[in-house]
């Protein structure tokens, strides 16, 4: 469906939180990665898409977001709690 603009920002926040909780995503503050134009969030989205057998695009498309919104266990998918 068309995405309502403020919705997009909300969904990006939601996805960031999801990847932090379950895929050990840490938003890099350092500008180094930014200069290298590495997108750690896209990497983590790819990791999550690969885990769930989704098409690995690194983009937050609606199927990926819908999977993130499914009720689930609070344990990470790739790392135990510290």
């Amino acid at each position: 469906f068309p995405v309502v603009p403020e919705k997009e920002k909300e969904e990006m926040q939601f996805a960031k939180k999801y990847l932090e909780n379950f895929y050990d995503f840490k938003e890099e503050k350092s500008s180094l990665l930014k200069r290298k134009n590495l997108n750690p969030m896209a990497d983590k989205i790819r990791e999550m898409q690969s885990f769930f057998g989704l098409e690995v695009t690194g983009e937050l498309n609606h199927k990926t977001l819908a999977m993130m919104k499914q009720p689930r266990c609070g344990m990470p998918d790739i790392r135990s709690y510290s």
Partner: protein
Amino acid sequence: TFPLSPKWKKEDVTYRILNYTPDMLQADVEEAIAKAFQLWSSVTPLRFTRVYSGQADIMISFASGFHGDFYPFDGPGGTLAHAYPPGSNIGGDAHFDEDENWTKFTTYNGYSLFLVAAHELGHSLGLGHSNVLGALMYPIYMARDTRDYKLPQDDIDGIQALYGRPKEPPALPTKAFPPQEPTEMTPAEATTEMPPRKEPTETTPSKAPVRPQDCDPHLSFDAITTLRGETLFFKGSYVWRKSPYFSDIEHDTISSFWPSLVAGFDAAYEVDKRDRVLFFKDNHYWAVSGYSIEPGFPKPIQNLGFPTSVRKIDAAVHDENTKKTYFFVGNKYWSFNENTQSMERGYPRKIASDFHGIGHTVDAALQKNGLFYFFHGANQYEVDIKSKKLIRKMKSNSWFNC
């Protein structure tokens, strides 16, 4: 498994139920947890013993929000529970989010405590998540029939990689001495569990009905709604999607947008300002925002103010200008105030007395470009919203550029 594959270095593991959810009878909570342990003891040498006081290896509790570890729960939906790998103190413990609706049976408006406990206890024994769809250790909750639930092979392989196979015939979880002290909590109000309702599955008659042709002159609809500028027409499990961005009509199914929703809506309408669409079937309704179903649904239509005598509605349409939603039932209609979230006084009223020229029931209703469209069978009636006067009559599928 978890990194370094932590596991219990013994075969006798204890567990303690620290508190209960008010959603279920205590006995049902205890049975669900005992059954969950039995799943794992039946395929390993492990034996589980319940204790009623002091420290157990696996401490089981219900909590909501922040609850003493660094992983607060998140309200209804989302995270349902979590558990820690084998170890001392919090190691092995399992926490269940009290903000969920816990059920003894698998229903569509609650989570089976047995299924979630079986998954979490997998973590308490040292298993991580599986990406095998259908495995118990798959991270996403999959509602399924739990009456004679069998542990999937992927989970058996995982747990036996840690603990090996059972030695003697599968051991039932042994009960410890009867509690010396009253159980930890005063018995919560016993909630009588609804008997398991049939899962709302899509009606799958022996031969799936074929989608009618777009320009079939007899085409009628179950429900119609706008959604973020587009218009969706529903019939059975089919959706016709008309978008201002594309010229042709897209053909979809309800399950392609909302996999867990039943087919055969009775009514649907959008509250544009809230980016919210409500779907109605029988005496329940769901709210969605785009593809996401809002947590806590379905709800009974009586929540909107309908009397119990109303078992389903025929059609619904929202008027963005007045913030009123009209619900059509038989030859009457109600007016619902979206601001106050309550039915207006003086309703229901006869449709024919207010909407001149609409002398029959309404199958579906749509609000577009400041006009109402009432659908009845293969015809639709364009009505001016303000004067409620009939403007013209057309075929129901006139929107499909026939």
